[in-house]
């Protein structure tokens, strides 16, 4: 087994991998950009090396510097997390050339699944259903228009090299094609260094379901059930759960879906953890969307219902071990759901809200798991994905999970920046969500943040605020008039106003 692993990532996923390393007795090594010196993943690691400036292109995307840091500290393997270099086949190959184990699939599998047009071909050949679309990337806007006419509007524009919703745009009719084309190419170039865009028929009101796969280098492939990720905004997942409420009522679809995912992994020559994403239409037909050749942001929900540790499995597979899990050993218990807590303001169009976190209280208690990449006093940098924490709950039923998440959200507190916590409070209270009546367009099409009550808070709440302010201003006056001496202040140690008797006994 490896003794030292370098984690070529940051934020909550770097913390997640560090934890798995500790659980296995492996020494975790972090890398950091100039903007991340004070970040949590640096503090949690045994060692940490600076690999460049704040821009990802100057640090977390620099293959040469990541490899140099790994060599320098004597790491035997590199975990790429998600994003950054995780689906970069050249990086996987470079690791191998440098004598380092890449904790992920073979470079060839990344490459073939990474080019979406090629992935479609492989899947179609393996008998996995694919969305009707163009066989290759469109060369220019004119060709894109041609392709779009051929598959028929509405269509999806997708980055051929992409994943995770970056560089994706749905186009309703030909009038919207030009601006969507430009935006998708811009994002694709930024995110993947490749602006090839291909075109698929848009499935109307689909659900997003995906199957978690584990494969070893000895030919064994197992699935760990599906996840449903239909709650999305700008094609980015917002809330994920397992099992899929729709599939839970259609167990035969699950059988076929999971079998298709295993077939897909085999066709891709896959090893390590991966996810096969599908669109599920209103009639229960599913279509291969893409294969993510890495750990997913939403992997914890699968861990919660199966009792597995996917990062540990990834490391074991990368070390050449045979999978100990057989398909029949994988048991599913209960339900799990994840809320992605972003430093974004849901009341201001989800604009990023970087800044200093001046208060951070995480929820705990039965059924709650938190994976947090942030710390109190730390400033969320502008340069990266603004995911600061993942809040997960497990429960025996979906209803119990929703109740536990609502409870956890009532305890969760982030001060100093805007977050999506309020969004989740409102989603979880929504009847349609509770009945699982949604598709990938639900959030953007039907869900709106409730505006604050224009009449303001009720009288009792106003009174409570006034009482707190009176108390605060009394403390202010004391501070202003001399050195602070809590013990001798008007307020005694137990919070009772000694002089005026304001806090006197209630019974």
């Amino acid at each position, binding site marked *: 087994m490896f003794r030292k692993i370098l984690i070529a990532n940051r934020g909550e996923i770097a913390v997640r991998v560090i934890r798995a390393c500790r659980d296995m007795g492996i020494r975790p090594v972090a890398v950091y950009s100039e903007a991340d010196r004070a970040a949590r993943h640096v503090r949690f690691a045994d060692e940490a090396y600076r690999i460049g400036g704040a821009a990802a292109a100057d640090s977390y995307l620099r293959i040469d510097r990541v490899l140099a840091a790994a060599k320098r500290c004597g790491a035997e393997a590199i975990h790429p997390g998600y994003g950054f270099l995780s689906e970069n086949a050249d990086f996987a190959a470079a690791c191998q050339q440098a004598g380092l184990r890449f904790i992920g699939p073979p470079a060839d599998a990344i490459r073939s699944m990474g080019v979406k047009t090629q992935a479609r071909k492989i899947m179609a050949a393996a008998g996995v259903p694919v969305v009707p679309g163009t066989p290759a990337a469109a060369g220019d806007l004119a060709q894109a228009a041609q392709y779009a006419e051929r598959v028929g509007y509405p269509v999806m524009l997708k980055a051929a090299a992409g994943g995770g919703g970056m560089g994706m745009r749905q186009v309703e009719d030909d009038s919207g094609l030009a601006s969507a084309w430009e935006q998708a190419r811009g994002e694709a170039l930024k995110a993947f260094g490749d602006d090839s865009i291909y075109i698929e028929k848009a499935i109307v009101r689909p659900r997003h379901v995906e199957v978690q796969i584990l494969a070893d280098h000895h030919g064994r492939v197992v699935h760990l059930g599906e996840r449903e990720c239909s709650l999305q905004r700008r094609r980015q997942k917002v809330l994920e759960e397992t099992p899929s409420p729709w599939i839970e009522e259609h167990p035969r679809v699950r059988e076929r879906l999971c079998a298709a995912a295993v077939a897909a992994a085999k066709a891709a020559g896959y090893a390590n953890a991966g996810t096969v994403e599908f669109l599920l239409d209103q009639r229960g037909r599913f279509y291969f969307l893409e294969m993510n050749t890495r750990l997913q942001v939403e992997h914890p929900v699968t861990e919660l219902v199966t009792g597995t540790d996917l990062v540990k499995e990834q490391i074991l597979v990368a070390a050449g071990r045979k999978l100990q899990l057989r398909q029949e050993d994988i048991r599913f218990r209960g339900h799990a759901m994840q809320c992605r807590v972003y430093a974004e303001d849901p009341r*201001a169009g989800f604009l990023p809200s970087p800044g200093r976190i001046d208060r951070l209280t995480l929820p705990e208690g039965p059924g709650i798991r938190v994976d947090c990449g942030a710390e109190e006093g730390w400033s969320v940098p502008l340069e990266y994905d603004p995911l600061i924490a993942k809040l997960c709950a497990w429960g025996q039923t979906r209803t119990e999970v929703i109740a536990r998440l609502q409870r956890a959200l009532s305890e969760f507190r982030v001060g100093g920046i805007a977050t999506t916590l309020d969004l989740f409070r409102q989603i979880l209270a929504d009847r349609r969500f509770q009945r699982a009546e949604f598709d990938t367009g639900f959030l953007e099409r039907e869900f709106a943040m409730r505006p604050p009550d224009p009449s303001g808070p009720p009288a009792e*709440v106003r009174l409570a*605020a006034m009482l707190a302010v009176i*108390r*605060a201003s009394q403390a202010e006056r004391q501070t202003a008039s001399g050195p602070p001496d809590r013990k001798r202040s008007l307020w005694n140690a137990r919070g009772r106003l000694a002089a005026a008797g304001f806090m006197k006994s*209630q019974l």
Partner: protein
Amino acid sequence: MTDHHLLVDGEPENVRLEDGACEFGGETRVASVSDLGRGDYSVLVGGRQHLVHVRRRGLGRFEALVGGELLRIDRIDPRSLDSTPARARSSPARRVKAPMPGKVLAVRVAEGDEVSRNDPLAIVEAMKMQNELRAPEAGQVAQVQVQPGDSVSAGQTLVVIE
């Protein structure tokens, strides 16, 4: 017994504190305030729990965050009732501002253009996401204060619509 005069979001209010209770709006209720530190107060009104976070805005001027709502509360010195006037709330602006620091990727309009509500004005990139800024209402573009490639800070005016 003490009377406290406050302005709550500009409205004058009066609270009388007395012996473990408070009188407000003609009602007397049992009340208890506990300073939890760092601006947090646990307030029990008739037994019901309210967590209030208080921030100072200036001497005798505070804001209180309670149940997701923000209230501006100023103390009034009864000897100079007009010393702490409530500020008028700012009127809705026609300046389209950068909501966060980032980089201008594209500007979709020029000075003099007529725009409809929701027309795209500019794209600002931050944290990997491209954010399209749209016209808050119909009008004419009076000023464009940035160009593609500019770095902008939060609150910086990008476009002015008349």
